[in-house]
């Protein structure tokens, strides 16, 4: 493979892959926050103190 083919392939797939992977992670983090909100924990601790 030509070195420029290699370089640009790495750049496009590498940078694109990094963005896509991190974007997927942001979606999962948002999902985790929705599924396990802080309020649930706070509510439980309120109950146990009352």
């Amino acid at each position, binding site marked *: 493979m030509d070195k420029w083919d290699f370089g640009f392939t790495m750049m496009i797939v590498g940078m694109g892959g990094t963005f896509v992977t991190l974007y997927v992670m942001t979606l999962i*983090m*948002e999902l985790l926050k929705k599924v396990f909100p802080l309020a649930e924990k706070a509510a439980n601790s309120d109950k146990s103190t009352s």
Partner: protein
Amino acid sequence: MIESILLGLSGMGAGVTYLFSQGGPNVIMLAIAAILLYLGVKKEVEPLLLVPIGFGCLLVNIPLSDLMEQGGLLKLLYDMGIANELFPLLIFVGIGAMIDFGPLLENPKLLLFGAAGQFGIFLTLLLALALGFPALEAVSIAVIGACDGPTAIYVASQYAPQLLAPISVAAYSYMALVPIIQPPIMRALTTPAERVIKMAAIKRSVSPTTKLLFPIVVTLVTGLLAPKGLPLMGTIMFGNFMRECGVVARLSKSAENEIANIVTLFLGLAIGGTMEGHAFLKPATLAIFGMGFVAICMDTVAGVLFGKLVCKLTGGKVNPLIGAAGISAFPMAARVVQVQGQLYDKKNHLLMHAAGANTGGQVGSVVAAAVMLSVLKGMGLI
């Protein structure tokens, strides 16, 4: 008898004779070792690394000491933890145990700054190829742009062990120089109005369950998308999981203190041991230092430009300066953003947002390296 005494004395003088006859590069490296020790001890520039690296460099450049020969102390350390990539991975366990991903989880979009901050890696890859470095050496050099010492060592030790010394020294040197390199670029790329943008205070909204599941989910996602980088992400997230689960406090504390300290000591000495004058002083070393500088500058440029884009898209709710924190140099880059923000408005507190982007940069650098390794694997080059 006299002959034996003379032979014995010649053995004692062999080192000095070597130094004056063919030890020119060693003399230069002894001076470099002195500079590294001076920077570490007097200027406190990354002392935990520069002191052992400087001393390792000093030891290996004393002629005929055989410390880097088979069975020598530095060679043993090198084989024990660098040739097989163990040391950088153990350091990652410690880093994971130290990092609080809370600010990032409060605002997950900050993770994208950690992607923009890796642009320098890929630009440097093209630069290294243009300068004639073979593909795997170019990739190893480019990873300096991750601004992440253990990642750079991990990749270089596998795919360009002959360049490990200049790559690791460049990576750690530029990490230490982040507070000097970044501010002029940040000022050049932002307007006075952009620098004083105040960002909304971060509300505490992350549950302990989310923080506990985060390292597991990240490990799964990265492992599935970029399996060649799993040792990197797996160890950092294992350290973080120990921190967040709360039931192995002793292990977590050991990882971030004793293990990280001992491994840093061995790693530094072994890297110093690779800085033998005749092997280190080559034009390639100078080129690697130059490209490392370009990589970190381009990371900052891309991060700030991405910050400006997000600022426009959000109607001015994001201060573009935080883009500079999307690199792995933690927590230096976040502190630089806070200091720069307060230069223009003392009441502007960007630290928590910058810390989120900075931990995003930590994750981003590992993901970028993992993706690169997986692409190389896909191309059949490794």
